[in-house]
């Protein structure tokens, strides 16, 4: 493979992962605030459908995105009311919403299947796009891809470097403590979940208005569950989650590219590799924190011990402690 092809491929991976990044960032902040929103898959479909239809009627992609974000927020609001205010299980509500919104998008979007619509234009950044390597890699994309580039460091900075980000993390780790410091836990969680919902809705529209232009039944079905899994795979850290999205995108391209190279091996299987990997990593994480394994490792010679320790430390992630738990002040 020549270097030019490599640049094109990496650029394709970066662009292809953009909607997933937007969705996973939405779910990451939601979960960091201690709320599990399982409804991603349905919410994304509903966002994709409504965004596409709104764009079609107004001939304006911006309105399409706006509508998709609002729809995402609306679905998130249902989750908030039922689980944060009325104390029903977040898992149950999110799960029901996922299935409900999927069917709803199919039913309401029936008229708009494979109708030509509006789409986001490509927008190379002047001058920068002509740079060798970096130009095609980073600066010759649609605005959504730039948004995905900005979103990851933004979320990271917000969560780790700002006061409000600190509050969000405390909501996920020790809501009682936050409460006693005068933070209105439920209200904050409402806010974050709504923002997360809007991002997921946008991600849906990013498919129907850009990456997989148009609408069809179950247009993005499955991608929401994948996004959800990637958030876990990424250990709720924006950088790792983004990495997960790119790994997933790369494997999808590998599945296409290797079809003839691998002879009879069905490369469709490669699509599930990230999930097998996710489970292996989760197991490794578990092992690394188990005292028995630690003891074994400690007995190894230093050459082996140090990299293993480093690996374990790096792997060690834990879900936000209060994730999915109801909060009753």
């Amino acid at each position, binding site marked *: 493979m020549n270097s030019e092809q490599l640049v094109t491929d990496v650029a394709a991976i970066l662009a292809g992962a953009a909607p997933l990044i937007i969705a996973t960032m939405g779910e990451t902040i939601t979960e960091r605030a201690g709320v*599990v929103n*399982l409804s991603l898959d349905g919410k994304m479909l509903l966002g994709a459908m409504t965004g596409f239809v709104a764009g079609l009627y107004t001939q304006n992609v911006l309105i399409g995105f706006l509508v998709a974000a609002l729809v995402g927020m609306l679905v998130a609001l*249902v989750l908030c009311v*039922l689980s944060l*205010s*009325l*104390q*029903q299980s977040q*898992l*149950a*509500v999110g*799960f*029901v*919403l996922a*299935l*409900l*919104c*999927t*069917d*709803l998008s*199919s*039913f*309401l979007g*029936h*008229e708009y299947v494979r109708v030509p619509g509006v789409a986001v234009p490509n927008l190379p950044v002047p001058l920068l796009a002509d740079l060798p390597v970096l130009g095609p890699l980073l600066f010759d994309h649609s605005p959504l891809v730039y948004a995905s580039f900005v979103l990851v460091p933004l979320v990271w900075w917000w969560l780790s470097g700002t006061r409000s980000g600190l509050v969000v993390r405390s909501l996920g780790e020790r809501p009682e403590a936050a409460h006693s410091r005068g933070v209105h836990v439920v209200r904050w969680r409402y806010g974050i979940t709504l923002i997360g919902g809007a991002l997921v809705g946008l991600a849906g529209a990013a498919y129907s208005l850009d990456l997989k232009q148009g609408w069809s039944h179950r247009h993005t079905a499955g991608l929401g*569950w*994948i996004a*959800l*899994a990637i958030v*876990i795979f990424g250990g709720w850290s924006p950088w790792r989650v983004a990495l997960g999205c790119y790994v997933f995108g790369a494997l999808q391209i590998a599945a296409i590219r290797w079809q003839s190279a691998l002879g*009879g*091996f*069905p490369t*469709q*299987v490669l*699509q*599930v*590799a990230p*999930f*097998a990997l*996710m*489970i292996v990593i*989760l*197991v490794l*994480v*578990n092992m690394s924190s188990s005292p028995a394994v630690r003891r074994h490792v400690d007995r190894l010679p230093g050459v082996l011990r140090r990299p293993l320790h480093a690996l374990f430390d790096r792997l060690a992630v834990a*879900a936000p402690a209060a994730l999915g738990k109801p909060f009753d002040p």
Partner: protein
Amino acid sequence: MQGRSGKLWAQWGLVLGLPLLALLGALAFTTLVLLAVGSPPYPPYWLLFAGVLSSPVRLADMLMLAAPLLLCSSGLTLTFAAGLYNLGIEGQVIIGAVFAMVPLRWWPELSPVALWLLTFGMGALGGMSWALLTAWLRVYGRVNEIFAGLGLNFVATGVTLYLVLGPWKREGSASTSGTEPLDQAIRLPTIEGLRLAPLAPLLALVLLVLVWWLLRQTRWGLSLRATGLNAVAAERFAVPSRRRMIEAMAGCGVLAGLAGTIQVLAVFHTLTPSISSGIGLLALLVTLLVQAHPLLILPVVLFFALLSVGSTQLPLQLQIDSSIGGVLQGALVLCMLLLRGLQQRWSQARVWDNE
């Protein structure tokens, strides 16, 4: 005395009244959705609710859908009782189906009865092993069963993809549409003229009763429910809660695996990557609706199967997309959750008032 019977009535009212109210709410919602696309609501409802009852063939199809759904719902009752959200049930159904295919492909010449027994055994084993993997991750890996289950669902699909497009593909083709269909002789026998293999719903019914008995009539069930209410507290009362969780998962896996076996042996007669057909997810909805009470499962499963089979009539007779059936199912559970939340808040408020 008065107070006690009043309380009983109130409870009755809740158990019956809430679902009926929820149904009304869900109907209101779907009516709005139907009106939104310009469809008069009455004819679709008629087909959804009564479409199935119009012919023995459809009634039979409904029972064949209800059978695996019942098995999965029974299984989920066990895990819910243990306080586990077994989202991985889809994968357990799929791996059950994969395991069930093994004897069917390798020893089709066995006498049918022996072959079926073997097939069901293998299916149960497959589902159980997949569930145990999740349980192991949960109990020893401290990996939430939802996350592990979600990942394992995808992996299970990967396994079928590999088999269907790889070693088990049909001669001369490579398609995700499935393996060579099973020989008529080794399919589960059906009633003449119907697709109903009576063994399937019968098995599901027997196992439902077994689950009810285990949960409600045995010490084991009591300790399982204690685990679900509060695992830490249960441990203090000498309930081996970790063990109970693993047992509940294993039991659910067995039932899911049997559901997968039925999908292969009596419904599709082939292995496809979509062999579970979302049965596990639908069963999760059922279980959320009945709050894991084993005796309420049967009517709800029948109702859900009725809607699912009835909804296929919609495009045929009314040119309406059949996904409205799913909208109704989802809205029903959502309304139920809403009402439960309101009712809990209301009774809480009353307690405070009384204090």
